[in-house]
């Protein structure tokens, strides 16, 4: 029943989750009589219920991870025997495959620009949608819409929008006297084009910010107003600190997501060739081509592990640095 009420409060109900947890844990949990039959039976039930997930973890995640680690030291090509070749794949990657560096550069470029831009964009749009004015509901719906639209159709749409001569983007730029670039045909502009497309679909992140902004107690703003704080100072001193946990969450997840950019480049370049001057050859596209075009599974596995390590390093840094700037109202988790 509680869940039904929560449902009705969607708009104002962003993150009470933690509070719910803490009150729940206070339950008289310590009725551990003995290691009774009942407890044993509960254990068995528990494992039965999570069994599907365990199977998935072993079969789809941990198993494959280990398997690819082993494969990365072989010359496996799916039909051949596995011959161990030591670190050859890794050595080739760093010394003999210039496209590896191209793809890494392209990917890091994309991550470094798209992640901060979509984060800042999400916050700004959320601020705009957090205004209490008439009809705001409809604006929220419209601006969230692109978040659910993805896949090949949207990539086709953007290929059309970015068409150098007759596309919408350059048509609009021409109104302002700007001679738009060739976008997907100009190696300088291919990545900015994809980043622009990502910005168009930032609705998901925006909504997270909106939800937490609505959760900031009104009294805080009222107190600040009494002290004579204007809109900008209220944002810097109240809103921004209060939303840092979501900024952190958004940064971590969207960094991991951005490192995996693939479909856009695959669809928007001819048969996934990486576009003009390989400017859209992202890491995963290069890995894909190695794995499924020339079936060098060993090399692709080595690439996968390097990606894994890179992403882990980024995530680790995020977590480390977060201690300095993320503000949790109720202390550490």
């Amino acid at each position, binding site marked *: *029943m*509680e*869940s039904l009420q*929560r*449902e009705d409060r*969607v708009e104002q109900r962003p*993150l009470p989750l*933690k509070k*719910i*947890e803490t009150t*729940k844990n206070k339950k008289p949990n310590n009725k551990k009589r003995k290691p009774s039959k009942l407890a044993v039976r*509960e*254990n068995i*039930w*528990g494992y039965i*219920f*999570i069994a*599907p*997930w365990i199977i*998935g*973890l072993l*079969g*789809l995640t941990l198993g494959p*991870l280990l398997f690819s680690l082993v494969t990365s030291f072989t010359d496996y090509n799916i039909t051949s025997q596995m011959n161990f070749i030591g670190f050859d794949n890794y050595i080739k990657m760093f010394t003999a495959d210039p496209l590896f560096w191209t793809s890494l550069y392209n990917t890091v470029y994309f991550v470094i620009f798209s992640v901060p831009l979509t984060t800042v964009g999400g916050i700004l749009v959320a601020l*705009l949608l957090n*205004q209490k004015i008439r009809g*705001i509901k409809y*604006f929220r*719906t419209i*601006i*969230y819409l*692109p*978040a*659910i*639209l993805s*896949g*090949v*159709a*949207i990539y*086709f*749409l953007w290929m*059309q929008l970015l068409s150098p001569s*007759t*596309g*919408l983007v350059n048509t609009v730029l*021409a109104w302002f006297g700007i001679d738009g670039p060739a976008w997907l045909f100009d190696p300088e502009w291919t990545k900015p084009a994809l980043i622009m497309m990502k910005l*168009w679909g930032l609705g998901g992140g925006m*909504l*997270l910010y909106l939800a937490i902004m609505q959760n900031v107690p009104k009294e805080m*703003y009222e107190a600040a107003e009494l002290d004579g704080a204007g809109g900008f100072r209220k944002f810097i001193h109240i809103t921004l600190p209060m939303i840092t946990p*979501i900024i952190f*969450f958004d940064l*971590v997840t969207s960094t991991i997501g951005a490192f995996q950019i693939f479909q856009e480049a*695959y*669809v928007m370049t001819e048969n996934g060739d990486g576009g003009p001057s390989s400017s859209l050859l992202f890491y995963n596209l290069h890995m894909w081509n190695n*794995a499924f075009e020339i079936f060098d599974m060993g090399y692709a*596995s080595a690439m*996968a592990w390097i990606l*894994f390590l890179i992403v882990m390093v980024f995530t680790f840094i995020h977590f480390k640095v977060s201690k300095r700037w993320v503000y949790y109202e109720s202390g550490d*988790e």
Partner: protein
Amino acid sequence: METYVGNKKKMRIKNFFIYILLIGVSIIILLPVWWMISTSLKSPGEIAQYPPTFFPESFQFSNYIEAWQTAPFTRWTLNTLFIAGIVTIGSVLANSFIAYGFAVIRFKGKKILFGLVMATMLIPGFVTLVPQYIIFSKIGWVNTYLPLIVPAFLGSAFFIFLLRQFIRTIPRAMIDAAKIDGANHFQIWWKIILPLIKPALITVAILAFNGSWNDLLGPLLYLTDENLYTLQIGLQTFKGQVSTQWNYLMAMSTTVLLPMILLFFFFQKHFIEGNNLSGGQKF
């Protein structure tokens, strides 16, 4: 934002600027969508025209029919509905089942295992792509729907987390009462919890359906027989056939997106719910 009587004029000016910005952003969002629809209705001649027209001179609805008949879209739609349908059922059943285990049952190692659930969200999916493909190809699952469907029945970290949060809001007394009445966990999950978390289940269903509908990677990797194609990979193939005939491409893009747009407008609340709960976890 609260008005003081004397500040009314200032407020009005402020609101005016807010509306301007809101309308500006909305136009940026909607114009591409309109562009897609309008291009899909133009004749090839009009598309090549410069400067481009915002409103089609004549509505070529025949674009839709011709494009649909150029490739086996009917078959691809049915395939997609079949896969997305089963994935949806699998996601709802498996994730609620697993989430029940984590939310209600007290068992050894639960905390660590749930931490592991969360940790898997930090693993980039692409890292396991190659080995998964090798494994699935060795057991003969390539060119079947199994690699696309079976994983849905093994739960996903995000959905488990989302449903666990919901189940935990249900008063423990209800579960204990059912236990006293002799119900086992399986019965409690099916008869008591599932009906109570229906709104959350709808959220999971919609997100799973949306995800499966938009999935290109899975079909691209595992389906080679054109008869088995889904709409996403079908659309990609279709582009190979019509190359730059944008009227056809946009017509089929609109058609493929339309069900998702409708789903969004009917179940907006659930999309938003799912989206927001994903941020509920503070690392």
